């Protein structure tokens, strides 16, 4: 469902240092009283991107979006959209439209009037407005609902009206605040797909704010993870998930097992970490920017650990440990095992249920070996 890159990998604009960003956020800080809602954020977003700002509540993602829309003025720093400085331009003068979390549909206007509102402000002739409204209603598949008032629509329909209204003026940049937040799970999955399709068809740059990591992963070309007013990491969904740059990012996206360890071998082509928690050494098959005896963390995703009853081969006398199955959560497509290690640490492991009704599957209270590849985990220093 993720947005399929339209361009060959080597021409993704954010990978090209010479590419000119469409939205340039430079050292933006926003203070409310003494509280830093956003602190010193710099961010470049390229044309036709679907960029997700992901973070928990209070991470500053919404404030950043509101500064892009013009509802808040940065305390310091600048915001440039399409080469023009927009830092203190009023919202009604920006080439930007926003889809609100609550949708903010005008309750006293019907669907057509809601969509036409922005067009009327531009003083377009009546016929042109009517054509554009009809076009948008078709785009969001609400042709027969033009005369309805917002309160006569379902949540999903309102969401689509809000999208149509935000797209009506052909904004260069569309801001979406938790666009799918108010929908139930099934509707959300369908709508997500439609949103990406619309974005691809129109080629508008989308900036989406969300707290839902699944939503961010499936929608975005790139994700900016925010934490306490700062950008913790910017990257493509796979980078964020597979190569997190910090404990925060690793823990925020998906589930993760984190173990503490000490560097005992630091070579250019490999690193060996001794972890008392895991009860074994961790052999990392690539160089890491660290020093011997340094304390660091190693993070591994539950699906990257294999379980077995027999002790597996361990070429470097590492990456194998032993534990007991404490809990099993059967999810249908896969099972989640909670393994209690000898150190008392618990690891979460997922295994795909490839055999139907497997009678020989690993069960409660069994002693099992855990193993992983030498590049399966991430070494984190912060």
């Amino acid at each position, binding site marked *: 469902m993720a947005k399929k890159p339209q361009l060959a990998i080597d021409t993704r604009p954010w990978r090209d240092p010479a590419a000119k960003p469409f939205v340039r956020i430079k050292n933006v800080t926003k203070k409310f009283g003494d509280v830093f809602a956003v602190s010193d954020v710099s961010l470049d977003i390229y044309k036709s991107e679907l960029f997700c700002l992901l973070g928990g509540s209070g991470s500053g993602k919404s404030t950043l979006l509101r500064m892009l829309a013009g509802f808040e003025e940065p305390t310091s720093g600048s915001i440039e959209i399409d080469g023009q400085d927009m830092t203190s331009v009023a919202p*009604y003068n920006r080439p930007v*439209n*926003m889809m*609100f979390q609550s949708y*903010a549909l005008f309750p*006293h206007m019907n669907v057509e009037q809601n969509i036409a*509102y922005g067009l009327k*402000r531009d003083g377009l002739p009546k016929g042109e407005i009517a054509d554009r409204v009809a076009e948008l209603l078709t785009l969001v598949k609400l042709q027969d609902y033009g005369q309805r008032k917002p309160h006569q629509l379902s949540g999903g329909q309102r969401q689509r009206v809000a999208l149509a*209204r935000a797209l009506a*003026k052909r904004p260069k940049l569309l801001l979406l605040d938790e666009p799918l937040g108010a929908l139930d799970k099934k509707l959300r999955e369908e709508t997500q797909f439609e949103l990406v399709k619309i974005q691809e068809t129109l080629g508008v740059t989308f900036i989406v704010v969300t707290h839902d990591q699944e939503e961010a992963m499936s929608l975005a070309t790139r994700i900016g993870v925010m934490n306490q007013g700062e950008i913790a990491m910017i990257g493509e969904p796979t980078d964020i998930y597979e190569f997190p740059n910090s404990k925060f990012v690793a823990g925020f996206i998906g589930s993760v097992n984190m173990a503490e360890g000490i560097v005992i071998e630091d070579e250019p082509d490999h690193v060996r970490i001794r972890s008392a928690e895991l009860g074994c050494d961790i052999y990392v098959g690539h160089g890491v920017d660290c020093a011997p005896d340094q304390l660091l963390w190693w993070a591994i995703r539950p699906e990257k650990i294999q379980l077995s009853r027999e002790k597996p081969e361990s070429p470097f006398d590492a990456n194998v440990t032993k534990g007991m199955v404490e809990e099993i959560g059967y999810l249908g497509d896969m099972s989640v095992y909670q393994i209690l290690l000898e150190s008392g640490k618990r690891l979460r492991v997922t295994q795909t249920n490839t055999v139907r009704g497997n009678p020989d599957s690993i069960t409660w209270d069994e002693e099992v070996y855990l193993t992983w590849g030498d590049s399966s985990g991430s070494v984190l220093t912060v």
Partner: protein
Amino acid sequence: MSSFDSELPPPPRRRPWTMVERGLAAVGISGKALVIAAPAIWLTVFFLVPLLVVFGISLSVKQFGRPPYTPLLTTEGGTVQLTLHLSNYLRLFTDNLYVAAYLSSIKIAFISTVITLIIGYPMAYAIARAPDQWRNILLMLVILPFWSSFLLRVYALSGFMSGNGVINQLLGVFGIPPVVMMQTDFAVYVGIVYTYLPFMILPLYTNLVKLDGALLEASADLGARPLRTFLSITLPLSMPGIIAGSMLVFIPAIGEFVIPSLLGGPSTLMIGRVLWDEFFANTNWPRAAAVAIAMLVAVVIPIMLLQRAQDAVQDNEMSK
């Protein structure tokens, strides 16, 4: 099995209310009926019956004696006779005074309502948009005048506007000759607007404070400047508040008696004063009653129509 016995719920406590309820149920009265009956009885005794009495008086004619009107029902030689006089109502249309007083009352009430709206709307808007910690203080200031006597405040106004009152003295300092304000329609407008302003502000405030700020942002986001946002979003959405506030000012202002008598002059014609004069000066109770009933009809019917319009608006706003 004994362990099960001990887990039985304790017997329900005998609360006084349950006993009352049971007692009422025994004679076929449910608690719900009781709750509805209380205001119904109150309104019947203190509103409907007096109104019918007034209506009855309006159909009699003046006589000297006590009571100062003829009875509707007379018994003579074993026959009961019902005498209804429509002369009072006919008089209302034939005597120019009454029509002129009605029209003048409506005019004064209408203009006062418009002025109250123009002054009250920005105040209500400002209070609704004020920071949380200020809002209650500002509301308090709006309500504060109610803590002093209404009569006292009207007298205070006359002190302000009289020939050597505060305003004229202030004008005198700048060498401006005194302005006649008392005993004019102007003073009546000042009095009514001053007195009824809170009744306009409060319903407007309760409406405006609910207005979703995101709607205003959405409007700005779609290219509307602040004035356009106000006209297209804020104003239509606050219509129920405007209607409620206007009715709370307009209805009592029509029948206002104290303000025109204390601040107005002989030329200020208002139906409340006419009514007073009929009742106390001419002791013509039937005529006064007819004036009151006619005013009720003249005011109630448009108000009911307005109320219906407001309900329609509110139905539209519901469950947004």
